[in-house]
């Protein structure tokens, strides 16, 4: 067969692209471009997704870098400047304790985004591996794995978190773990059902017949096929996680004052909504825009990751 490789190399000459034939760009000939490279080139053509990505990155930078550039400290109170509307000094205004709202939104965003992303990644990792394994192995293993999921589903979330907090003390990382532990359940179910419908397809059988190991088949052949729904669910998980965090903080189990998260800020804001509307508008606006962006990015990614979606 080695003698054929020479002809293959000759075949690469641009001369073979005869006049009238579709022009093969350099990009098409790139060797071994991966699923992600392809997805990126397709995603670039989706204006809404790219725009959302830009806005999302801007919000991230705003929250991460912003506090260093601001002259105010997020927790410094100035009771004389309490609850003033947006002005040249305080762009977003101040809250009832005279703290600069912009810095607080930035600080809150840090925590909210961190919770959202870390917990989602945790949920994603556990859920995908767990669900894919259960679905692929099937039979009794699948049944017992999924009954365990049902069991966790049945456990009231609040009690679960309170138990964790009591057992291990309160910390933000514990909150990540708690939220991740809850959110991976639906991920596992979705991945499992996807894998079950896929594993009956002949390409899985073909992969077995080519001598691939089960682990390889799950990771290389099955998981990419369920990435579409997984990505969409992940982008929906991020806002769900942020809301959970707000809920926990409200109960006093999550982020504690004076620290802020968007959930905490919105909570404070809605208490004073009628008198000081900006206290609600700014954090809620950031929260909403972030969620929109994540949804659009998720949509775009789903299309981009599917090789069948029109390339041209």
């Amino acid at each position, binding site marked *: 067969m080695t003698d054929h*490789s020479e002809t293959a190399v000759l*075949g690469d000459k641009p001369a073979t692209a005869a006049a009238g034939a579709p022009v093969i760009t350099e990009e098409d000939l790139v060797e071994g471009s991966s699923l992600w490279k392809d997805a990126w080139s397709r995603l670039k053509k989706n204006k809404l997704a790219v725009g959302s990505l830009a806005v999302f990155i801007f919000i991230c930078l705003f929250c991460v870098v912003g506090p260093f550039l601001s002259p105010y400290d997020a927790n410094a109170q100035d009771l004389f400047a309490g609850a003033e509307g947006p002005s040249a000094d305080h762009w977003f205004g101040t809250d009832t304790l005279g703290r600069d709202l912009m810095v607080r939104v930035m600080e809150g965003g840090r925590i909210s985004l961190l919770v959202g992303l870390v917990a989602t990644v945790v949920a994603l990792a556990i859920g995908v591996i767990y669900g894919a394994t259960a679905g692929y192995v099937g039979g009794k293993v699948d049944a017992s794995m999924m009954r365990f999921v049902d069991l966790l589903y049945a456990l009231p979330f609040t009690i679960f978190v309170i138990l964790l907090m009591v057992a291990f003390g309160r910390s933000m990382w514990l909150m990540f773990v708690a939220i991740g532990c809850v959110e991976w359940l639906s991920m596992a179910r979705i991945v499992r059902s996807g894998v079950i419908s896929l594993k009956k397809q002949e390409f899985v059988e073909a992969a077995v017949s080519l001598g691939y190991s089960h682990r390889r088949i799950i990771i290389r052949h099955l998981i990419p096929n369920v990435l579409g729904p997984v990505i969409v669910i992940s982008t929906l998980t991020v806002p769900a996680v942020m809301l959970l965090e707000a809920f926990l903080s409200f109960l006093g189990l999550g982020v504690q004052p004076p620290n802020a998260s968007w959930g905490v800020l919105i909570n404070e804001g809605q208490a004073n909504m009628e008198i000081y509307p900006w206290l609600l508008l700014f954090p809620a606006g950031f929260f909403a825009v972030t969620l929109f962006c994540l949804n659009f990015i998720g949509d775009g990614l789903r299309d981009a990751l599917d090789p069948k979606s029109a390339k041209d």
Partner: protein
Amino acid sequence: MALLEVNDLTTHFHTRDGVVRAVDGVSFSLDRGETLGIVGESGSGKSVTCYSLMRLIPEPPGRIERGTAMFDGQDLLKMGPRELRKIRGNRISIIFQDPMTSLNPYLRISTQLVEALQMHTDIDRKSAVNKAIAALEEVGIPEASKRVHSYPHEFSGGMRQRVMIAMALITEPDLLIADEPTTALDVTVQAQIMDIIKQRQNDLGTAVILVTHDLGVVAGTCDKVLVMYGGREMESGSAEQIFYHPRHPYTRALQKTIPSLQAKGQELFTIPGLPPDVSKPIPGCAFYPRCPYPKTGTPEGERPALAEIEPGHCWSACGFCDSSAPIETVLTKAGDVADDTLPETAGSNA
């Protein structure tokens, strides 16, 4: 020594409704470079025979009950998963019926070919890609160097089946199992695919097991033929023996169903009745209920033992009917009856 020596292969499925005897004591042997055709109706156990050899039977409910399959001195049926993985795709490859679903839709053709190659050989990516391109060229994919990076959905069914062949043969296996490789394709492409399989077989000296219900294909390509019915071996022998001196009533009836061998204007011959329900024990000869020959006894007991008529030519010697006469004598009578009941059809055809 033969490359593959299958002896008394028996695969059952233990379902809720009982034991399905999908393959019931099949034996055959195959030398390097030879082609074995397995023919039979749907549900006769052809595919399960192949899947059993590759150990692709889902267990449970399936179970290989007994038998041996000596492949180059090793018993395929007793291998551990690790040894199996070394054989699968490397020394034995399989092509499936439906090329539309046999390729992973999310991976490029190049990725899938390279993966198959790198799995079994120590080869770097670049030369693996070159080898993949060469493999595609050999199965007649035009502009292979560009198309190698396409996704499966950008290929037609016939081209996908070519890719499957290329993938199965890229590791130069000793044995290729083709499970009805042309059933899902349209007629014009079928011949091309068969040509490619044959040509690659000649190039590489691969032994081929070809599962099909197209007897024409078997006559054109196979050295040996195994006729299966109800999970059992009805007759086996060289292609000449099976086609020119068929012994078993089922083989004879099957041959009569080839449309091109029938006179023009005549109603196409079909074997009346349905294949047996293999989830129930079949007494005696599996073909007995549909056999057109005059019955001489009631089927009972175990399946008839295989009897050798001439060297290499075996048949399941049934003793429940008188099958000494050629099948035409039996069928003309049946044909007369059909003509009587359907005078209009016969008239309009004439």
